[in-house]
């Protein structure tokens, strides 16, 4: 079995099993754990609306900190948008999703995907440098943050190399790309990458709880 066969076969199978198992475990375990019953009289009964409003308001920079966090905030957006375009609209990726999900969607040309991936990579590097050089950010960062960054950077770099055929034989680059994505799958449920699944539910829950007490979330 070649490295590529291993990466496309058993390694993929097991990493997907761990991903699906871990995400459902973490997600349901977190959501169903419940919160302490609030015995106070609700100020208003608009939990769903407050929850949804908080998802929206927290997606924009908080007004009083706006100047300070503008770079962080919008570069975060740019990074996520570029990443999603590169991941979701590359033709080989869509063929991969099709093999797992059973359906596909239209793709973008290779060149656009490469440029978008390069932009995503540049933004991520800028954010990592900021994290390392900013005393407060450095203080609140732990190993989880750095591992999460690494498991995202490596697939981006190897994907770009594979798509441009630079550095090694295509099958080796493709195998390493597969394996790096599989490392991401395995890490995903157990590290901060789970924010992908938990960001909106947690904002919703905070908004609903604050709203009940009549406080702006």
């Amino acid at each position, binding site marked *: 079995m070649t490295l590529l066969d291993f990466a496309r*076969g058993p390694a*993929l199978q097991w990493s997907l099993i761990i991903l699906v198992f*871990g995400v*459902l*475990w973490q997600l349901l*375990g977190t959501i169903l754990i419940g919160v302490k019953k609030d015995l106070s009289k609700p100020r208003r009964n608009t939990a769903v609306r407050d929850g949804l409003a908080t998802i929206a308001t927290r997606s924009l920079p908080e007004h009083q900190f706006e100047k300070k966090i503008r770079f962080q905030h919008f570069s975060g957006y740019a990074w996520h948008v570029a990443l999603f375009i590169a991941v979701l609209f590359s033709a080989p990726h869509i063929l991969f999703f099709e*093999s797992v999900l059973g359906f596909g969607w239209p793709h973008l040309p290779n060149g656009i995907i490469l440029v978008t991936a390069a932009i995503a990579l540049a933004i991520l590097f800028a954010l990592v440098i900021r994290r390392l050089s900013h005393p407060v950010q450095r203080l609140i960062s732990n190993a989880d943050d750095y591992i999460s960054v690494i498991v995202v950077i490596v697939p981006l770099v190897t994907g770009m190399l594979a798509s441009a055929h630079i550095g090694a034989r295509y099958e080796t680059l*493709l195998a390493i790309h597969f394996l790096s994505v599989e490392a991401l799958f395995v890490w995903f449920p157990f590290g901060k990458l789970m924010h992908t699944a938990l960001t909106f539910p947690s904002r919703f829950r905070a908004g609903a709880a604050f709203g009940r007490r009549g406080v702006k979330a």
Partner: protein
Amino acid sequence: MRKHQTLGVYLHAQGVSRRAFLKFCSATASLMALPPSAAAQVAAALAAARRPSVIWLSFQECTGCTESLTRSHAPTLESLIFDAISLDYHHTLQAASGESAEAARIAAMEENEGEYLLVVDGSIPLGNPGYSTIAGMSNLDMLRETAGGAAAIIAVGTCAAFGGIPHASPNPTGAVSVSEIITDKPIVNVSGCPPIPVVITGVLAHFLTFGTLPDLDHLGRPVAFFGQNIHDRCYRRPFYERGQFAHTFDDEGARKGWCLYELGCKGPTTYNACATLKWNEGTSYPIASGHGCLGCSEPDFWDKGSFYTPISAGLWGSRETLIGAAAAGAALGVGSALAARARKKKARAAEEAES
């Protein structure tokens, strides 16, 4: 051609002009990635070469490799060069049969001990010696016996080079390649199902010119022919870069000649010279004829999933396993949440009892 006649004299007698011969030599030199100045050396060496004795053994194979070499549209210089060797034993081509055929093999081996070239096509079954025999002799014994006095071995076709189709899972005959049995002789793997004829003659020409075998890649294949993958030389590559793919074999993309990646083309992971040398005297090759590359010159090409599965798609087991993993994860999530709730409830009850 008489045995001691030189190749130059033989080709001249066949009506091959000096100009055509030199053209062939420059093409061979460039095919073998030699500098242009080497063409004269190739010409001089080939013209003076005496026909080497070649023994061709066919084991578990389909005769496609021999067909590829001998059934070209018109006689080519390559085939004339091939005619010029002393093919002392070849089941399909030799006139002799039965015991006299085997006697020809033994005689060639004795006469040219340590100097003859052994060409093998087909894989060798190790499961049971009776799966494939020639004149009552198992393929394994015949290979060992004939390889003993050979100067070098050319494993022609993917079956001889890597086990090929007989080796495909579940490999009922226990088929293996030549290099898995013979480890003390120089072996060149000219893989392909079938291999490109000019690659076979190119290796022969190299041997005749320099008396050595060409540079080989990590799979024992001549780098000059297998150094680049099909994708890097494919004329459909601009469509790949632009993201223009044929989705089916009869859609607009297919008619416009767009890239066949989505239809399972294995060009990006296949190393061979099809895209440059092509087949039938440079007429076409599979991708040019509208079908993706099958990756036939790579080991285990038969066991890498469907020919029509794109290489970026997984070769993984089943969606059922994922559904099972999802169910198990969900059960664990619900269970751990309930357990946490029960712990909290118990702690609260204990707190209340204390106060």
